[in-house]
């Protein structure tokens, strides 16, 4: 019987894995950001996630919604800048859609990422193709929705979504920055991969690998 859903504890494990994965990729993300950003994206995101997950770990009884909120508010508070609020909004949007959920299915993941993306766009006003984290989360969500429609199991669905997110992040190399500091580089931002999209791809890939190991 393939894995169909994750419970509160499993979801917490996924959040911990995301924090650890971004910390591992910190140097790489910071290096990407140094070309067309201000060179501290990886540091900031890793720090915000670390503080957020530490709080999640300490409050053992937290619901999925509460844990996502804790991470979201920690990113907003500890990272600051555009990226803290944008990634924080993603988690807060996901929390909203996870309200009352004890278990998360593929349909729930779709609803959560949709709500997260909506809040991100409300705050940041970016569209797909603007060379932002949306260019990773948008194709990942589209892939998840397609998998849901086709009845593809959760683990396989996230493996496909991770590939879509990674392809989306790589695709940002061809785009002209429309937001943040990349905007001021105009055509010169072509050739550089967006750090936020890369972080987003790391997050989706981590969900995929976490689910795969739970399925064993």
């Amino acid at each position, binding site marked *: 019987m393939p894995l169909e859903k994750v419970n509160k504890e499993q979801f917490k494990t996924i959040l911990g894995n995301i924090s650890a994965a971004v910390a591992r990729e910190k140097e790489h993300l910071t290096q990407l950001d140094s070309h067309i950003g201000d060179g501290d994206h990886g540091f900031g995101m890793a720090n915000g996630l670390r503080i957020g997950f530490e709080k999640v770990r300490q409050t053992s009884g937290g619901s999925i919604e509460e844990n996502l909120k804790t991470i979201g*508010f920690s990113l907003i508070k500890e990272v600051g800048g555009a990226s*803290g609020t944008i990634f924080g909004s993603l988690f807060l949007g996901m929390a909203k859609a996870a309200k009352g959920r004890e278990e998360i299915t593929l349909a729930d993941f779709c609803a959560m990422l949709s709500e997260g993306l909506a809040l991100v766009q409300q*705050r940041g006003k970016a569209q797909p193709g603007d060379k932002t984290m949306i260019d990773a989360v948008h194709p990942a969500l589209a892939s998840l929705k397609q998998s849901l429609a086709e009845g593809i199991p959760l683990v396989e669905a996230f493996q496909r979504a991770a590939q879509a997110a990674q392809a989306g992040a790589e695709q940002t190399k061809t785009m002209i920055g429309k937001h943040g500091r990349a905007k*001021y580089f105009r055509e010169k931002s072509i050739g550089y991969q967006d750090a936020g999209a890369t972080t987003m791809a790391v997050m989706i890939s981590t969900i995929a690998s976490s689910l795969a190991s739970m399925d064993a």
Partner: protein
Amino acid sequence: MSWRMKKLINKPENLAWELLEGLVDAYSDHLQMVGDHIILRRHPKPKGKVQIVFGQGSGHEPGLNGFVGYGMHDVEVAGQIFACAGPDRILEGIQEAHRLSGGGEVLVLISNHEGDVINGTAAVEMARDEGINVESIVLYDDIASAPKGEETNRRGMAGLFFSFKAAGALAEEGTDRKRIMETVQKVIDRTRTLAVAVRPCTIPTTGQPLFELADDELIIGPGVHGEAGPEGPSKMMSANEVMDIVLDKLIVDGEFKAGDELLVLLNGCGATTLMELFILFRRLKENFEQRGMEYYRPLIGNIVTTQEMGGFSLSLCKADEGIKRLWDAPADTPYFKVCK
């Protein structure tokens, strides 16, 4: 390029908080800290006057957390290094301003950078939901960041100092917010800034250079975080040569002309010496004389820095009697004072 950071810091995660605590400890006669590292004036202005709130990233000291005080800002919400505070902390700053004004008018000044605009706008929306009487205005001045005609897309740089001074002076006098906002917009419309970088800085949280620049090159038009200018690097040049280029660009963009009287802020980025700034200013004077332009009470020094970046920014603002009066108005902050 080999690079090794040599900075006297403790844990990188804590450095923004530690610098703010040190600043307030040192200038406790001017400043106080409340809540989550929100900086207020030690002696707030009387209730009923407009409270001025500003938030931005840290790492640009003494700008702008060193300019809280009489005749300048009332509330400062500083974020992490080069990253604006999140909306929750800016909201906290607005709530403090609301309390200090006795429920009166609050004005949030926002420097035009993506994070500052997103977070400042979100905080203002949240504050309005709580019934707080707050407005915000986005400030910009850097001619390198967007072409003429697209002024509102330009970044906020050191030239915002003219707006802060005008807003602070008017608020201190008891002017209402609508009038302050009109005047600030007028100052912004007349202000132009262009920067030059000769050496990158290290990002204190990562130890990495903010950007790369060959030993024999400089950049005209970098952002306040060293973002490359539109033209890329040029060969290193003398003080007179670079000042002439910078002035040409500013004067064309600002449409400044003979007979104009200009406020001048010649700002050091961190590692450039006052010696260099005075040599640059000497050329500015010569250049102004040739053009029949005048300057009014110039300000020269490290006002808005980018760590130990080498370089300067030049900000010009076309003055009139009203702007000159506000520039002359008394101010008393830890790092900027104007005597009566």
